[in-house]
């Protein structure tokens, strides 16, 4: 590395087969070493948020202060045959930087250079060899997807690439192409005889159409892959910010509540206003109530008096006649005495005549009635007060959440969420188009084959034609043979990966209820317990162990072996798991490179595996912008 990141000047790591442990505190450059490797292979790398790091910021600061305008990373790879590949990628502020690759002493041109590096470590495959324990999200998408339909195609393909399946797939493609080639020759030959000229022309027409259709199909596939990358990037951002996302959701819910509350309050305000306009009637009724009651009493008294007067009149008439006024019967002395007493009583209670007619006044007042407007106005006012209180409460809650969200990039999260959904939709649509396109192509191919068949059977079997037909059949057979082998092979391999992953998992897990791992067609892994039950959730530490199990299994079954580099692989593991993982790591690959900090792994942990450690190094802080790679000293 030259002036790369925190590594000032020229610093190198000379690695052989074996287990290396590099100690470094946070910020001392552990991740930078892995990024340096990514830099050579891909010309870029991402930060923790999944964003591509601007090269300008990679140049070592001290070097920059001294006037340097470039940095570079060189990598020497030796394969099992001893062939050395040297690659160096340089960045120059002026834009002059580039990639230089030499294989077996011979410099390669740009295209060959990029392809060679791709052969060694393709981007999608990198995650299985450059393992960042902190960035579990990359593995979560791999390990959590039970739904094959949403499982990233790219991930599945990259695993199959490690396992070597592309060889078989390409063989199928190649043989089909050769087959077509021979068919083309057959067609041309048949044309010469004239009998089958028309058929030949139809074949050629179809071939042209198919070629066009394949071009379009490639375009569609490109679009699909582009959208998938957008999905992956968005998923990364979302997972990184899950907690913030949750807060954003809460915030939005509160916002909705606030809006509902506000509109309800406005309605109540309008209601209150309406009722207030009518309160005067209510108040007026209250005002006149005492008077009304008084008048009612007067009217009552009047009526009582009137009744009494009438009674008195009746009695006086009876007394005058000394006979009942009603039935004419003679009154006895006793009755007369009673009537007289009664008359006295009545006369005592006669009402005064006030001189005004209370009934008319009362009738006028009775028209003034309570409408209930005041009570209703009061009720609405209370509701408005409640709403005000609630609003204050909501605003306080929202304020709290706003603080918590803090510097989380809520806009980025929202954008990522939208992008994720949008791109998934796009992918769905494009996939359908791809399906249709493939179906159409297959249909045309079928027709073409039928036509070629017809040509073949209608043409004379001279020596040349016979030979061509034989070769054609051979090519077709080979294509079919590889196709069939591929299907079986893939299933076997997946089974093998499952067995190996399960095997490793059982060595690493500490939970006695874990009985193994199961793999689905998307290479997602499920933890299996007693009675074949699937564990629905896994802790972060368990995720890491499952990820390690998959990586270990892939390494065991890969067609090519690569070094495995791990940055803080123990971050989420407890002591027991750590011990188990440490014990296993040495066997994961021929070359294993562990980057750890002191809180993750202590002397005791390492002592247990000391015999397996090839070398221990440390990243020594020189100053804020400089780290040096040194041999590890226990007290250093």
């Amino acid at each position, binding site marked *: 590395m030259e002036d790369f990141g925190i590594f000032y000047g020229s610093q190198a790591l000379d690695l052989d087969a074996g287990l290396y442990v590099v100690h470094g505190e946070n910020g001392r450059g552990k991740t930078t070493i892995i990024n340096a490797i990514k830099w050579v292979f891909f010309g870029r790398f991402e930060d923790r948020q999944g964003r591509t790091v601007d090269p300008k910021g990679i140049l070592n600061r001290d070097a920059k202060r001294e006037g340097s305008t470039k940095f570079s990373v060189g990598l020497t790879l030796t394969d099992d045959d001893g062939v050395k590949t040297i690659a160096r990628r340089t960045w120059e502020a002026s834009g002059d930087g580039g990639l230089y690759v030499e294989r077996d002493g011979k410099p390669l041109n740009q295209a060959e250079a990029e392809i060679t590096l791709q052969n060694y470590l393709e981007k999608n495959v990198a995650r299985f060899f450059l393992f960042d324990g902190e960035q579990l999200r990359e593995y979560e998408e791999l390990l959590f997807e039970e739904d094959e339909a949403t499982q990233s195609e790219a991930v599945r393909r990259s695993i199959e690439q490690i396992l070597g399946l592309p*060889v078989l797939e390409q063989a199928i493609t*190649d043989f089909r192409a050769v087959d077509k080639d021979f068919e083309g020759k057959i067609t041309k030959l048949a044309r010469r005889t004239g009998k089958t000229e028309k058929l030949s022309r139809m074949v050629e027409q179809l071939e042209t159409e198919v070629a066009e259709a394949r071009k379009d199909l490639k375009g569609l596939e490109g679009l699909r892959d582009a959208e998938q990358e957008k999905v992956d990037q968005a998923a990364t951002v979302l997972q990184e910010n899950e907690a913030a996302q949750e807060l954003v959701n809460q915030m939005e819910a509160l916002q909705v509540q606030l809006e509902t509350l506000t509109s309800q309050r406005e309605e109540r305000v309008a209601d209150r206003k309406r009722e207030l306009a009518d309160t005067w009637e209510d108040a007026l009724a209250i005002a006149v109530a005492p008077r009304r009651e008084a008048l009612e009493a007067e009217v009552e008294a009047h009526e009582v008096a009137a009744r009494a007067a009438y009674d008195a009149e009746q009695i006086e008439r009876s007394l005058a006649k000394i006979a009942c006024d009603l039935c004419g019967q003679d009154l006895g002395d006793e009755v007369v005495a009673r009537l007289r007493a009664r008359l006295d009583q009545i006369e005592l209670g006669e009402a005064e005549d006030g001189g005004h007619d209370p009934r008319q006044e009362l009738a006028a007042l009775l028209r003034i009635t309570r409408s209930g407007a005041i009570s209703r106005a009061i009720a609405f006012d209370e509701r408005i007060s409640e709403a005000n209180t609630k609003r204050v409460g909501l605003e306080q809650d929202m304020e709290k959440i706003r603080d918590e969200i803090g510097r989380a990039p809520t806009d980025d999260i929202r954008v990522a969420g939208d992008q994720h959904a949008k791109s998934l939709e796009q992918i769905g649509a494009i996939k359908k188009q791809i399906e249709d396109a493939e179906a159409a192509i297959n249909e045309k191919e079928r027709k073409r084959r039928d036509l070629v068949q017809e040509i073949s059977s209608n043409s004379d079997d001279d020596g040349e034609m016979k030979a061509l037909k034989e070769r054609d059949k051979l090519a077709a057979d080979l294509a079919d043979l590889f196709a069939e082998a591929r299907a079986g092979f893939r299933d076997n391999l997946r089974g093998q990966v499952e067995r190996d992953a399960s095997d490793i998992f059982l060595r690493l897990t500490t939970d006695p209820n874990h009985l193994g791992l199961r793999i689905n067609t998307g290479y997602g892994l499920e933890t299996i317990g007693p009675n074949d039950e699937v564990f629905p959730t896994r802790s972060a530490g368990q995720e890491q162990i499952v990820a390690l199990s998959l990586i270990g299994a892939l390494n065991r079954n890969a067609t090519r072996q690569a070094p495995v580099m791990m940055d803080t692989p123990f971050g989420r593991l407890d002591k027991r798991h750590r011990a188990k993982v440490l014990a296993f790591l040495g066997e994961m690959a021929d070359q294993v490179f562990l980057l750890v900090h002191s809180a993750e792994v202590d002397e005791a942990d390492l002592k247990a595996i000391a015999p397996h450690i090839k070398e221990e190094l440390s990243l020594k802080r020189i100053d804020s912008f400089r780290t040096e790679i040194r041999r590890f000293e226990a007290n250093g």
Partner: protein
Amino acid sequence: MRGSSASEKMLEALMAVRADKFPSVPEDLLVRVFELEQEAQYETERGPTQAMLRDLIVDWGDD
């Protein structure tokens, strides 16, 4: 290349399918084309490889 065990398994699978369903395909041709495919597995341009396969098939036919 450590990958031999994986490649061996692939070849085994191919041979088994051949014996079972495609006995007319010559064994040695199968081995040869498989080797070719392995060498060319990272080529993005398939033209040259396909040309070689074509020639192989023609040669075998001539035997």
